[in-house]
Structures are given as structure tokens and as C-alpha cells.
């Protein structure tokens, strides 16, 4: 027996290739969408991995520092350092903002990292070029995705920073590239008011008789000084010594300090389950809509192709073709269309779509397998209408009136 579906496809290959191509672009978008979701999850994981922390100590009852604002006094770390199982602690600040260079700006997450040596929690683990920050002010390490180069001078708020090192794939959970600057600078940037506001605050303080006492020289200066520094950080990153269970250490920090502590797994749950949950739902909706559109297209095309073959189907039935053969003819064509579409989709997603999407698109082989199965199921379902129509064809039609 010959493959009727195969012969028909070869005969009208133009139709199949063109529709398959259109369908392929849709499938490509669908795969890219799934890839964007995977990329977001991966961004979140990379962020957590690169922070080098086992535990995140944040403001009580917040899910900071990534998903909610959190602030802690910048000396909190001293007390945590002494707790059992703690190997290293470091303050960290995060601030997502526009970073300017030569009139243009990029969105970036600015991380303020504690002074220390490479390996300190919060420090970028690997540089692709340049060196780590060595001075305590006005140096920056930027991710290559910012477009900055070594030696570039970038502006964060009112200060200028020289890019001394470059990282790769250091991103926020939003996919924004990261820029690392010294903690003190970052604290200032987070807290910085404009000159007018500073002057006004000084005037108010000076006008307050409680601070401006002629009898107590220096009091006003001290009061003003406390107002112009930012004693807060967003989180304390904790590295647990090997051999210690992070959970136990977390429990003891919680017991001694009035703070909230998250383990790596909990933090991931917050990022994936809460921070990117809305985007994930959005992507899921897109996937559903794209699947429906794809099935409608396949169903329509197969239906049109089948309608164009009603005469032939009547003849086939008249000369004794089994229903099974006719079902196979239609279903195989539908699946062939899906297969062409999938190949086109996979290629276009990998070669054209993923590289041009601004977000990181992570195409997992497993998603491709799931995608392929889904496409095949959709194609089989989409051929049902046509199969029903074909089975209803009366062989008597071939004889005519």
C-alpha cells in the first residue's frame, strides 16, 4: 500500500510548506514565550547563585530584598557574624534605576557591596574583564549587558563611577543587568536628596530649638550629620560554614534577632512563586491563546484541504477504501503540517527569535519535546472535524445523479 497522505503532500507541497511556515512562526513564538518564562526563572536562580549567600536576613515580616523593600541597620551584620555556623556575612543594597552614560541611560540593578575580597557574599563571582572594586568609592563593576566597557564613566545619581570590571549574566530577577558599586556609595545613592531638600532640612533642624542650643556647641552639627547619612542596607547576606545546616543557622538568627531569615530554597520560592508569578501567568495566557490560534489554523487548513478532496474521498469510498485509510490520510496530513510547523518553529525560535528578544530566552530541550507532543496532539484534534466531514461523504456522490 502506498501512503496516500504522503502522495497528496508531495502533490500539493506548496500549500503545506507555506501553511507550515506560517504555523511554524506561531510555534516559534510559542516556544520563545516558554523560553522567556524559563529565562526568568533562570535569571532568578542566577541572581541567587551569584549572590553567594546561603541565607538572606531581611527586615522583619518582609519578603525583601528583591520582592519587597526591606531595610536593616547597617551594623546588624556584626551580631549575626558571631552566631553558630556563620562563615561570612555582608551587607548588601539593591536599587533598580536608570544608569546614565554619555546622555543615554540603561536600566540596571545597582548593588552596593561591602568592602572585602572576592568571594564576599554579594560580590560578583566571576569577571570576564578588568578587576574587582578596590577603592571604597566611585568604582563600578558592570555586566556586559549594560553595554558599558572598561574605563567608561557612568553616572549613578549625582556621582560618577569608572567601570573597572565586567561580568556576564549578572542580572536581576527582572532580567536587568547588574552594576556593582561600593556599599557606602550605594547607601548614599539610595538616600540621596537634592541640594535644595538638604538645605531645607538643615534650615528646619536649625530652626528647631531642641537641636539649636547655644549652650551645647556642636549639637546642631551632630544632628545635621545624622540626618545626612543613610544607616540602612536592604539585606545581610550570610554564608554558612560547611558542615552546618543553613536551616539551623537560620533558626538561631531568628531566635536572637528580631529579623526575618530566608534560606536559598525559600528565596527561590519567593522569586519564582511571587515576584515573577504575574509575568508567568501572562506568558501562560499567551501560550494558551497561541495554542488555540494554532489549532484553529491547522483545523481550518486541513478542513479546506479535505473539502477540496470530497470528490476523491467519495471515489475512494466507492472503490472500497476502508474508513481507516481515509482517517489516516487526513490525520497524517495534519500531523505532517504540525511537524513542518514545529521544525520551522524550532529553527526560527533558536536562530532568529531568541537572539533578538531583549529578555533572556532559555530554550530547554524538554520544552521542545513537550511542545512537539502538544503540536501533534493539537494537530490530531484539529483534524477531527475534517475526519468527521470525510466519513460523512456518501460514496453514492461519486456516481452522481
Amino acid at each position: 500500500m502506498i501512503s496516500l497522505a504522503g502522495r497528496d503532500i508531495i502533490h500539493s507541497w506548496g500549500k503545506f510548506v507555506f501553511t507550515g511556515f506560517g504555523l511554524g512562526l506561531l510555534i516559534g513564538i510559542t516556544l520563545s514565550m516558554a523560553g522567556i518564562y524559563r529565562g526568568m526563572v533562570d535569571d532568578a536562580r542566577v541572581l541567587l547563585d551569584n549572590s553567594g549567600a546561603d541565607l538572606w536576613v531581611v527586615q522583619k515580616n518582609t519578603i525583601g530584598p528583591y520582592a519587597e523593600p526591606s531595610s536593616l541597620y547597617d551594623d546588624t551584620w556584626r551580631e549575626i557574624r558571631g552566631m553558630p555556623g556563620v562563615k561570612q556575612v555582608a551587607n548588601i543594597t539593591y536599587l533598580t534605576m536608570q544608569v546614565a552614560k554619555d546622555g543615554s541611560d540603561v536600566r540596571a540593578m545597582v548593588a552596593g557591596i561591602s568592602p572585602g575580597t572576592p568571594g564576599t557574599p554579594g560580590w560578583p563571582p566571576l569577571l570576564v574583564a578588568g578587576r574587582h572594586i578596590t577603592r571604597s568609592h566611585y568604582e563600578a563593576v558592570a555586566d556586559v549587558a549594560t553595554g558599558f566597557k572598561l574605563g567608561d564613566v557612568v553616572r549613578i545619581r549625582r556621582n560618577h563611577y569608572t567601570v573597572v570590571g565586567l561580568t556576564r549574566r549578572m542580572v536581576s530577577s527582572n532580567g536587568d543587568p547588574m552594576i556593582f558599586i561600593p556599599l557606602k556609595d550605594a547607601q548614599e545613592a539610595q538616600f540621596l536628596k537634592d541640594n535644595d531638600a538638604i538645605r531645607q532640612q538643615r534650615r528646619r533642624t536649625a530652626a528647631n530649638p531642641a537641636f539649636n542650643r547655644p549652650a551645647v556647641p556642636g549639637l546642631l552639627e551632630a544632628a545635621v550629620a545624622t540626618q545626612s547619612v543613610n544607616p540602612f542596607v536592604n539585606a545581610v547576606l550570610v554564608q554558612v560554614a560547611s558542615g552546618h545546616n543553613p536551616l539551623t543557622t537560620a533558626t538561631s538568627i531568628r531566635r536572637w534577632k528580631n529579623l526575618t531569615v530566608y534560606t536559598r530554597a525559600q528565596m527561590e520560592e519567593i522569586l519564582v512563586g511571587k515576584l515573577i508569578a504575574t509575568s508567568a501567568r501572562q506568558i501562560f495566557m499567551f501560550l494558551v491563546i497561541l495554542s488555540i490560534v494554532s489549532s484553529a489554523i491547522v483545523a481550518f487548513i486541513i478542513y479546506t484541504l479535505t473539502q477540496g478532496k470530497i470528490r476523491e474521498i467519495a471515489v475512494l469510498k466507492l472503490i472500497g477504501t476502508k474508513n481507516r485509510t481515509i482517517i489516516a490520510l487526513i490525520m497524517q496530513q495534519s500531523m505532517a503540517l504540525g511537524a513542518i510547523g514545529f521544525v520551522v518553529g524550532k529553527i526560527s525560535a533558536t536562530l532568529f527569535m531568541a537572539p533578538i528578544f531583549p529578555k533572556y530566552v532559555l530554550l530547554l530541550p524538554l520544552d521542545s519535546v513537550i511542545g512537539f507532543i502538544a503540536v501533534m496532539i493539537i494537530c490530531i484534534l484539529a483534524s477531527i472535524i475534517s475526519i468527521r466531514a470525510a466519513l460523512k461523504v456518501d460514496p453514492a456522490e461519486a456516481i452522481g445523479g
Partner: protein
Amino acid sequence: MSMKGIRIEGLKKRYGSGDTAVDALKHVNMHVEAGEIVGLIGPSGSGKSTLLKCLGAVIEPTAGKMVLGSDIIYDNGWRVRDLRALRRDRIGFVFQAPYLIPFLDVTDNVALLPMLAGVSNAESRKRAMELLRELNVDHRAHAMPSKLSGGEQQRVAIARGLVNRPPVILADEPTAPLNSDRALTVIRLLNDMAQKFETAIIVVTHDEKIIPTFKRIYHIRDGVTYEEKGEGRSPTEMAT
């Protein structure tokens, strides 16, 4: 009565029921011997197509009897279970339009029937080629149907009707789209085939050109058949 050919006795077919019922066949008697070709002639709406559909087992008669060879296939109800297999193995169809499968080449259009019956591809194609040669279209064996002339298409359709060596061929206006010469050629081919393969052939026609070739003709009027002797002229002589 021989054990081959077709025999129809008192066949009735009513379409619909109640007020809208149409008695398309009221009383049909007919017999066609193996190797014989008969004409079936009647005005429009007289029941010709209905009769072919009953005999071709695509619609069910209302009453009567149909015998194919030594088998009663209908006797106030179907007497065969698998009508598809009956059509595939024992009845050849030739239609007014050739209705070839557009995505199969000439050989496979013909070879499809034995293939459907489970014959191997190679053997099916061999049988197809033999018939195509017989019908003088073997030079177009690998062409697609759309590339053939009307006459060539019709000859391929005849080859398809014959390839499973059915004891019965039902032809519904097989010469309608053809000019006089080609029409006579088709009839000559059907005559040859009838004799060569001992096939009983019924040709429904309006075609004045070919009516004189039948030895026997059935007239059908308002669903009732009347047998008549035909001129029985040779199509080869008529063509010259």
C-alpha cells in the same frame, strides 16, 4: 440462466417516505451475461443512476432481488456483510467524469485498487501496467492525471474499473464528455474487455453515437425496465 453475470428481479427503490416519497425504481428486471455489454437508456429522472447505485451497493434498494454470479447479494435486504469489499473486489465503476485521484500518477491511480485489496505494490503496478498497455495509455503511465487529455483520462478510469477483474462493470455515461471517435473507442475497449475478462457491463447512456453498438438495450421509464434488441453494430466499423 448462467452462473455468471448479473440478474435483477423485481427491484424497487423508494426515496423518502410519506407524502414526499419518490418511487425511483418501481419494477426492474434485468440480466446481463458474462462477456456481455448492454445499454441502459431512459429519459432524465427515469431511475438510471438509482439503478446503478443499487447495483453498486452504495444505496439500499427497498425490495427485490439482485444476483451477482452465483451469489444473491440482495433479497429484500443485503445478503453480503461487507459492502465495501463487495464494491472493491466485484464491481468496477466507470463514471461520466474520470474522477482520478489527482495526487497519484496514472499507474498508481489504477494500482490503488489491488493495493487496497492487499495485493503487493509491485504486483498491483504490474497489473495496472498491463491494462494501461491494453488501453493504449501506457506511454502516460507516470504522468499525473491533470496532464492527460480527456480521452486518456477516461481510458485510465476504465483501466481502474477493470484492474481487479470484477465480474461486473457499471458505467454511467462514460462517453458523455468525448467526441464521436473517442466515444466509439471507449465502447470498443469496453467490448474487448467484456469478452476478454468475461465481464458483464452495463452502460448508462444518452449518447446517440454509441447506442447502435449494443446488442441488447434496456429502456427504463418511470422506474420500469423494458428490454429491446439493439443494432449491435461494431464500433470499429462505425468509426471508419
